[in-house]
C-alpha cells in the first residue's frame, strides 16, 4: 500500500512547534540544581515525539538532531547525567535551532544544519565526557548503536553464509508466555513462511486434562527449518519473547562435528548490553574505539556557554498558521446547538405549512418560535466564536524566555508571573496584541524595573516582578502588565513634552493627561537610549495598535512603587457591538466601546473656537464637535444642530463629539474588511452587512479625529476647557 505521508506534515509541524514551546517553557521553569522530574519528563516527551515524527515523515536532519538530545535527556531522566545551567542554555539553543530548521522544512526548503551540527558536537562531548569520567569500564551504549548490536549478537556470522540449509530450533517457552499475548502457534506460522518447517512438540510436561490451565504453556518444541533464510529473520520471529523462553538456534547441515553454532539463547541480554558484563568483546572494542576517537571530553563542555545565544528573532518569522485546533467539546456544543436549531426550524415549518386559517394562536406560537430561533441563533453565534478562541497562554508563553534573556542582557533580576493564562480570546486579536505586549514588557524590563543595587538601596526586593494578568470583564478581555519598578515620573514627562513643544508652556495638565503624554508620538523619557526600547516603535504605536483592535489602554503608576498598563480588548475582531447612526441618509456604525454618551444638542452650549471649529460645553468640559458631513464630504448643507444629536466618543485619550442625524439600534455587527478588495479608508475601520443586505461603514474614531485635522488645536481647546 502506498500512503502519501505528506498529508500528515501540517499536523506534524503544528505539534512539533507546540512541542518546542513546551520544551522551552519547561526548560525555563527548570531549576538545574533541583530539577523537577515531571518537567524533565515533559521535555523528554516533546523531544521524543519530535524525533519519532520527524523520523517517520522523513525529516532526517531533525530526527538525527533530536536523537542526540533525547539520549542526553534520557540519561538526565535516569539520573545518570546532571543538568546544569550550561546544559539548560544548550537545550534552549537547541529549541531555537530546531524551530528554525522546522520552519525551513515547513516552507519546503532544505534546513541549514550548521548550528545543529555544532550543538550536536557539544551534546556528544557531554555524553562521552561524562561516561569517560564516571565509568571507564562500564558499558556505554553508543548512540545509534544498532549495527554494533547486530554484530555482537552474531559473532563470526560473516564467516559462514547464512543461507546453507536452514536451522535447528529448540524452543521452550516459559509457562506464562501466553500472558504477553504471544502465541507459540503464531510463531510457528511465521517460521513456516520462512521455509519448510518440521516441528516436534514435546508433550512431556503436559499435565492431565483436569489440571490443565488455559493460560499456561506446557509444551516445548524442536523444530527444523529448511530453506534459504538469514539468521536475522529467524531471530526476529522470537524477538518479542526473548527472556521468556529458552531458545537455541543452530545451523542445520554442514559438518556435524564442527563446533555447534549455538546462538546465545537469551538474546535479550546481548541486545541490551545489560551492564552486568554479558556484552561481547566486539562491543567493547567498538566502544573503546569511539572513546579514543573522540578526544578531550571536558574542554567543549566549558566552552559551550561562552558562545552567544543566537538571536531568537527567527521566531517572529514563524509562518502564520491558517488552521486552529478545536477541542472536541466545542464541536460537540455546536452540534447540539445545530440540533436545537433544526428542531426550532421544523416547528416553525409546521406552523407555516399547516395551511389553516391563521388565528391568534398561530401568531402566538409563531412569536414563541421566533424568540426561540433568536436564542438559538445567539447561542450558535457564541459557540462559533468560541471556536476561534484560544487561551491567552499562547501569547504569554513567549515571555518567560524573553524575560530570562533580557534580564541576563540587562543585568537585572526579574521574576515573571503569569496569571489567567487560560483566559480565552480570539486568535486574530491574540496575534495582533503580541507586539504591543512585547513592547510593554520590554519597556518594563528596560525602564521600569531598577537594577538590583538600586532596588536594594530602596529597600525593595532585588528581584523585580512583572505580572501578566488576563481576565474577562463583560464582553472584553483585560490584559494587565504590572511591574514593581520605579514608576513613571509624570512631571518629567510634562517637562519633556514642553521641551518638545507637544504641550504649551502655560497648559496645565491633570495626572491622567500627564500620563497620557507617554503615548504621544516622539516622546521618550529615557535620556540614554538603550538597545531594547526607546527607539523604533514607540508607545504611540502600541496605543495605535490597541485602538485598531477597538481596544483601549490605561496607565496607573506610582513613583517608586511600579506601573500597571491595563489593556482592554474586545474578545473577537469578527464581531463588534455597534451603535447604528444615520448621516445624510447613510447608516454608519460606531463601536459601542468608544461611545461615552449620546445627547440632544443644546445650541446654547455650542461655542466656536476661532480657527478650531465648534466645541461643545459638556458639564464644563469643552469637547470638539466633528461633522461627518465635512469630514466625509457628504452634504454641504448639514442639518442644523437642533435637528441633530451628538455622540460623545473617546479615542487616543481624547474626547470628541460627532454630530449625527439620528441614532438607530445598537446591535452586534460582523466586521468585514474593506481592504480585501479596496484600500484602507481613513476614518473607516471596516464595513458590515446590515439585516437588509445593505452595506454600512464602521467608523474609526481615532481616524476621524486625524481627518478632522488640527489635533493640537483641539487638544488645546480641551485642555483649556477642563482647566477652566
Amino acid at each position: 500500500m502506498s500512503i502519501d505521508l505528506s498529508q500528515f506534515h501540517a499536523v506534524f509541524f503544528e505539534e512539533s512547534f507546540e512541542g518546542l514551546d513546551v520544551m522551552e517553557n519547561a526548560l525555563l521553569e527548570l531549576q538545574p540544581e533541583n530539577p523537577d522530574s515531571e518537567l524533565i519528563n515533559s521535555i523528554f516527551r516533546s523531544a521524543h515525539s519530535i524525533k519519532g515524527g520527524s523520523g517517520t515523515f522523513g525529516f532526517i536532519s531533525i530526527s538525527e538532531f533530536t536523537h542526540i538530545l533525547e539520549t542526553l535527556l534520557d540519561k538526565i531522566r535516569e539520573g545518570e547525567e546532571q543538568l546544569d545551567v550550561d546544559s539548560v542554555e544548550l537545550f534552549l539553543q537547541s529549541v531555537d535551532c530546531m524551530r528554525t530548521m522546522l520552519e525551513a522544512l515547513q516552507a519546503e526548503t532544505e534546513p541549514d544544519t550548521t548550528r545543529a551540527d555544532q550543538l550536536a558536537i557539544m551534546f556528544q562531548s557531554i555524553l562521552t565526557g561524562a561516561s569517560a569520567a564516571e565509568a571507564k569500564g562500564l558499558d556505554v551504549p553508543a548512540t545509534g548503536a544498532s549495527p554494533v548490536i547486530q554484530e555482537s549478537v552474531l559473532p563470526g556470522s560473516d564467516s559462514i553464509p547464512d543461507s546453507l540449509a536452514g536451522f535447528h530450533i529448540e524452543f521452550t517457552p516459559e509457562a506464562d508466555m501466553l500472558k504477553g499475548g504471544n502465541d507459540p502457534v503464531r510463531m510457528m506460522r511465521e517460521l513456516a513462511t520462512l521455509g519448510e518447517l518440521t516441528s516436534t512438540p514435546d508433550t512431556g510436561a503436559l499435565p492431565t486434562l483436569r489440571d490443565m490451565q488455559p493460560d499456561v504453556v506446557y509444551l516445548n518444541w524442536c523444530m527444523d527449518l529448511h530453506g534459504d533464510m538469514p539468521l536475522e529473520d529467524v531471530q526476529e520471529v522470537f524477538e518479542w519473547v526473548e527472556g521468556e523462553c529458552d531458545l537455541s538456534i543452530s545451523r542445520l547441515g554442514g559438518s556435524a562435528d564442527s563446533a555447534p553454532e549455538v546462538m546465545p539463547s537469551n538474546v535479550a541480554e546481548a541486545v541490551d548490553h545489560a551492564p552486568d558484563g554479558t556484552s561481547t568483546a566486539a562491543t567493547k572494542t567498538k566502544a573503546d574505539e569511539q572513546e579514543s576517537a573522540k578526544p578531550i571530553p571536558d574542554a567543549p563542555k566549558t566552552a559551550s556557554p561562552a558562545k552567544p545565544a543566537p538571536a531568537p528573532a527567527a521566531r517572529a518569522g514563524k509562518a502564520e498558521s491558517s488552521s486552529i485546533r478545536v477541542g472536541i467539546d466545542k464541536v460537540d456544543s455546536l452540534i447540539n446547538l445545530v440540533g436545537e436549531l433544526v428542531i426550532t426550524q421544523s416547528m416553525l415549518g409546521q406552523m407555516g405549512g399547516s395551511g389553516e386559517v391563521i388565528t391568534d394562536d398561530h401568531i402566538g406560537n409563531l412569536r414563541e418560535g421566533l424568540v426561540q430561533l433568536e436564542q438559538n441563533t445567539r447561542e450558535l453565534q457564541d459557540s462559533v466564536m468560541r471556536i476561534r478562541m484560544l487561551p491567552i497562554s499562547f501569547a504569554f508563553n513567549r515571555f518567560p524566555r524573553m524575560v530570562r534573556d533580557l534580564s541576563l542582557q540587562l543585568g537585572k533580576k526579574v521574576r515573571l508571573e503569569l496569571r489567567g493564562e487560560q483566559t480565552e480570546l480570539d486568535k486574530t486579536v491574540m496575534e495582533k496584541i503580541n507586539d504591543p505586549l512585547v513592547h510593554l514588557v520590554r519597556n518594563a524590563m528596560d525602564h521600569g524595573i531598577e537594577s538590583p543595587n538600586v532596588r536594594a538601596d530602596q529597600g525593595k526586593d532585588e528581584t523585580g516582578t512583572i505580572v501578566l494578568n488576563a481576565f474577562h470583564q463583560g464582553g472584553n478581555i483585560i490584559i494587565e502588565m504590572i511591574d514593581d519598578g520605579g514608576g513613571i515620573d509624570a512631571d518629567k514627562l510634562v517637562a519633556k513634552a514642553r521641551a518638545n513643544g507637544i504641550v504649551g508652556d502655560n497648559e496645565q495638565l491633570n495626572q491622567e493627561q500627564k500620563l497620557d503624554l507617554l503615548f504621544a508620538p516622539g516622546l521618550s523619557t529615557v535620556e540614554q537610549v538603550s538597545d531594547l526600547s526607546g527607539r523604533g516603535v514607540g508607545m504611540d504605536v502600541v496605543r495605535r495598535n490597541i485602538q485598531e483592535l477597538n481596544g483601549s489602554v490605561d496607565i496607573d503608576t506610582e513613583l517608586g512603587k511600579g506601573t500597571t498598563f491595563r489593556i482592554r480588548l474586545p474578545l473577537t475582531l469578527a464581531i463588534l457591538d455597534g451603535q447604528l447612526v444615520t448621516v445624510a441618509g447613510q447608516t454608519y456604525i460606531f463601536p459601542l466601546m468608544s461611545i461615552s454618551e449620546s445627547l440632544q444638542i443644546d445650541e446654547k452650549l455650542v461655542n466656536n473656537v476661532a480657527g478650531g471649529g465648534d466645541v461643545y460645553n459638556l458639564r464644563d468640559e469643552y469637547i470638539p464637535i466633528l461633522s461627518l458631513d465635512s469630514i466625509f464630504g457628504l452634504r454641504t448643507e448639514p442639518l442644523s444642530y437642533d435637528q441633530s444629536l451628538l455622540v460623545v466618543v473617546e479615542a487616543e485619550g481624547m474626547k470628541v463629539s460627532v454630530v449625527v442625524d439620528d441614532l438607530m439600534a445598537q446591535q452586534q455587527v460582523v466586521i468585514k474588511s474593506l481592504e480585501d478588495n479596496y484600500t484602507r479608508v481613513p476614518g473607516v475601520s471596516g464595513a458590515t452587512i446590515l439585516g437588509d443586505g445593505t452595506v454600512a461603514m464602521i467608523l474609526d474614531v481615532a481616524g476621524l479625529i486625524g481627518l478632522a485635522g488640527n489635533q493640537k488645536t483641539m487638544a488645546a481647546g480641551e485642555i483649556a476647557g477642563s482647566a477652566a
Partner: protein
Amino acid sequence: MTKILAVDDSASMRQMVVFTLQSAGYEVVEASDGLLALDAAKSGHFDLVLTDVNMPNMDGIALVRELRQLEAYKYTPILMLTTETAGDRKMAGRSAGATGWVVKPFNPDKLLATIKKVIG
C-alpha cells in the same frame, strides 16, 4: 471486522497510524494517552492495541500493565511503538505484558506487516 485501539500522544503519528490501518480495512479507535486508552478499552473490545510508550498522564508501559489486569485483555495482542534507543524500555514493556513492538521510525507497510504477523 478487526478492531484496533491506536494510542499515541502525537497527533501526526496517530493520524498516520489510523489512516494506514483504516486504509487496510481495520476499524480503528484512537486515544491520545494511556488513561483515555484505558477508558476506551474498557468501553469496547479490541482485537489489538497499538500504543506509544512515552505519553503524558499514563505512559504506554503503565497502560499495558493496566490492560493485562483486565480479564478481556489478558491475551489480546498489544504492540508498542518504540524507538530503537529504548532497549531497556522495550524490555519494560515486555515485562509489563506487551506482545511485541514496532520500531520507530516505521513506514505504513512495515506497520501493517507487523500487525498481520500478530493478528493474521
